[in-house]
């Protein structure tokens, strides 16, 4: 076991089959937060198979060799535990928080579906969860205003055929095309202990946790073949400005801007995260002060108009999003946002703004690790993506060393129009929308 002096209490272990285990103490007692990061996400999908990593996440709750359909949920809910899962471009995440005495049961449930999922899978289960996911897609994308924004952004930000060109939810056609053989082969290709980071946050002794994890996971063999992800290499800017204009039933015009920025983990990613915080995170941010409070052009978003989509294995995206106030055209809002972006690159930022940005980011980070489940997730992320679980505690230090000049220089380099994508939504039946149905219109 190795520990880091500052983080102090992290325990790290690697089982013979490659499983990486990390332990850390919880601030409150009597519980165990268990978090599994599998190194498989939508970046592993190929055209025609989009949405599969996420559909597969659903199938992981449908029973395995020794666990019946829905029994995994039942077991954890009986314990009053929290349970869920999520899929992103870069990983699939399963997590439970349970009373400490049930840690063994949760480890066994997770080990069983890792070792024997294929024994419990049926066509009926696949058909049912396909319907569930199609309804998830309707609920989050197709039946809500601006729901398709992310899909449109990714299409503009990454070229056709690139593994980040599509959203994790996938297309209806691809979901329909999913077949049982592919389900079984997907599990075999991606779900092995050698592709897993398991984090346990609890009050238990790390060696004790290690022994338990060895007991349940130690006998599961590593994958015979390590799956390769499609090539995600990408150089240079977006090649913009590029835009997608949507005229449909939405309550108000909305502007989404995107810029390619360095991969998550690179120093320049952190630099641009600070830039996004100066621009659009918190009510002290520029976009909130100028466009919400002073000029009254944008809807009050509470100070959440800019952020980064963190991609580890390809350039990430900085996104800026605002919705227009009544009587404000989409063009006016778009121009106003762009003015603020340009101002930041031309006039720079103050030390005070940078301090505020650091404080906002640090607050968000500390809040997420204040929760045992959030701490376990952050540790899993830092281990899977960087092999440094201690970063979960020390991450804010990365922002302390970045100067205002560095932020401005990176913003100048990365926020130009050649690196810009725009997705615009306009309501039907406005003069501007009618005019713009083809392309550009003026304010």
């Amino acid at each position, binding site marked *: 076991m190795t520990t880091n002096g500052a983080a102090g209490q992290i325990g790290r272990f690697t089982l013979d089959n490659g499983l990486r285990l990390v332990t850390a103490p*919880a*601030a*409150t007692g*009597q519980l165990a937060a268990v978090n599994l990061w599998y190194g498989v996400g939508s970046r592993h999908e190929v055209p025609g198979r989009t949405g599969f990593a996420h559909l597969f996440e659903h199938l992981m709750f449908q029973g395995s060799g020794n666990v019946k359909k*829905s029994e995994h*949920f039942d077991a954890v*809910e009986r*314990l*009053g*535990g929290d349970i869920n899962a999520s899929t992103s471009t870069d990983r699939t995440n399963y997590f439970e928080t349970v009373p*400490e*005495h*049930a840690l*063994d*049961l949760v480890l*066994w449930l997770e*080990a*069983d579906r890792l*070792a*024997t999922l294929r024994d419990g899978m049926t066509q009926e289960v696949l058909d*049912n969860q*396909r*319907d*569930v996911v*199609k*309804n*998830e897609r*309707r*609920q989050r994308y*197709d*039946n*809500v205003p601006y729901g398709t924004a992310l899909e449109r952004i990714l299409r503009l930000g990454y070229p056709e055929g690139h593994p980040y060109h599509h959203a994790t939810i996938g297309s209806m056609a691809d979901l329909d095309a999913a077949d049982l053989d592919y389900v079984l082969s997907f599990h075999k290709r991606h779900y092995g202990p050698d592709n897993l980071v398991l984090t346990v946050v609890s009050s238990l002794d790390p060696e004790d946790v290690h022994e338990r994890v060895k*007991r*349940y996971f130690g006998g*599961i063999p590593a994958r015979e073949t390590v799956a390769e992800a499609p090539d995600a290499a990408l150089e240079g800017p977006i090649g913009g400005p590029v835009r997608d204009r949507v005229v449909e039933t939405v*309550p*108000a015009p909305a502007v989404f801007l995107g810029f390619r920025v360095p991969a998550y983990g690179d120093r320049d990613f952190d630099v641009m995260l600070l830039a996004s915080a100066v621009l659009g995170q*918190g*009510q*002290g941010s520029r976009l*909130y*002060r100028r466009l*919400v*409070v002073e000029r009254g052009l944008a*809807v*009050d978003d509470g*100070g959440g108009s800019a952020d980064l989509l963190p991609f580890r294995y390809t350039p990430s995206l900085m996104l800026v999003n605002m919705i227009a*106030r*009544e009587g404000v055209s989409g063009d006016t809002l778009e121009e106003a946002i762009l003015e603020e972006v340009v101002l930041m690159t031309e006039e720079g930022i103050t030390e005070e703004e940078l*301090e*505020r940005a650091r*404080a*906002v980011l*640090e*607050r968000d980070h*500390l*809040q997420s690790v*204040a*929760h045992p*489940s959030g701490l376990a997730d952050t540790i899993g992320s830092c281990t899977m993506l960087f092999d440094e679980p201690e970063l979960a505690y020390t991450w804010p230090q990365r922002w302390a060393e970045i100067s205002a000049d560095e932020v401005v220089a990176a913003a100048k380099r990365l926020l130009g129009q050649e690196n810009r994508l725009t997705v615009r939504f306009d309501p039907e039946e406005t003069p501007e929308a009618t005019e713009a149905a083809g392309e550009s219109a003026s304010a």
Partner: protein
Amino acid sequence: MLQTRPEPGAAQPYTFPKPQRLQVGGGSVIAIDVPGQSFAAIRLIQPAGGAAEPLDRMGVATLTGEVLEDGIHGNSSLAPALERHGAEWVSRVSWDAFVTGVDAPVNRITDATALFAEAVRTPALRADDVLRRREQLLERFWLDVSQPSTLASRAVGGQLFTGRYATPLNGGPVRLADVTPEIVAEFHASSIAGVAGTLVVVGDLSDVDLEALGRTVFGDATPTAPEPVTAPERAAGEFPRILLLNRPDSVQSAIFMAHHAPSRSAIDLPRAEGMSDVLGGMFTSRLNMKLREELGYTYGVGCRFDLRRDSGVFCISTQVEAPTTAHSITASLEEIDKLRTGGVTEGELSAVRESNTVGLPVTYSTARSLAYAMVEMVVHDLPEDHVDRLRAGFERVTAEDLRQAAVDYLHPDQLVAVVVGDAGQLEKPLRETGVGPVEVRDPETLWT
């Protein structure tokens, strides 16, 4: 290769942390020390929720909660000041309470609390700020109800009640427009500025001077009693019934089914919540198993009680693929009927008992969740061992209790189903369900 399935041993006994209490000036401080929890949650509870608003001032509490963020200098000055301390403003107006607060690193709570207290007690309340916030709230309302699930949930109040509860909590788009800066100033002066309230503090308190925090927040404010509780009037009309809000071309329907329930103090919580868990409160509940895991109609469905000091509502909510809308409603009603007539299984009973007893360390694992529990205790006059009493109630609950709770608290004959979807596609099948009369309306005509 695999180990046999382990049986969990006995759960460690859990007791909700005993709070420290102290009286500071006209207010009370209730604090829970969580050693090692470096992020603190601070909440001030004042008895000025939406339910107490006069009909000609509906939405004033919500608007005032928003305007406090403009701080003592106005012009949205509070949040940036807090941001520099790594702190975050919290404001939540419910039907029963006006709750404000701050989440902050525990080593910064003295400064963060001072800023928070100034903003609550002596805000600028500039007319320009009030008007800007009001217009923003009005526009936000329309944005929010463009989400079908939000539209369905906001429309239900008018189907169940007359009076204050018939209009959404923030006053809705018509009534809120009549709330002026003068009305906000009067409300603040009479219900917030000088009203001491109760301060909840949760976090690692080893270096925190609670009395000083209390003095900062309470100053010379005085205590006040909550408004007297009187039951609200119910809406007229035939029950059960369906209100279909037309949203053309929707590929999904948002369904919100609701009926009246007793108030928080009048309901037997372990029986009611336990029964609700079985019907739709858990992933493995009957509604979710039926509509999601068997029929594949939805991403999820749930039910819950919304319990207020003077009344309550029981509701089921889901979003389903449009062609399955009518059957989703009748299938849900069948599940209610089965629960009322057949009661629960032994497996369901044990799930209810266990999840509401051994899971408490998980439920109360953060400063925020502990603070939320304390706020509920203050708002509903609950004893400080309320969580332990509730746990004991769940330990005692029987299968017969849960069956009887289904009879006592589920009233499908009194239900209204609000459906947001494509009327052209839905009206006929909804009429054919025979559930009750179907009224089709344009959502924009709802708000008066």
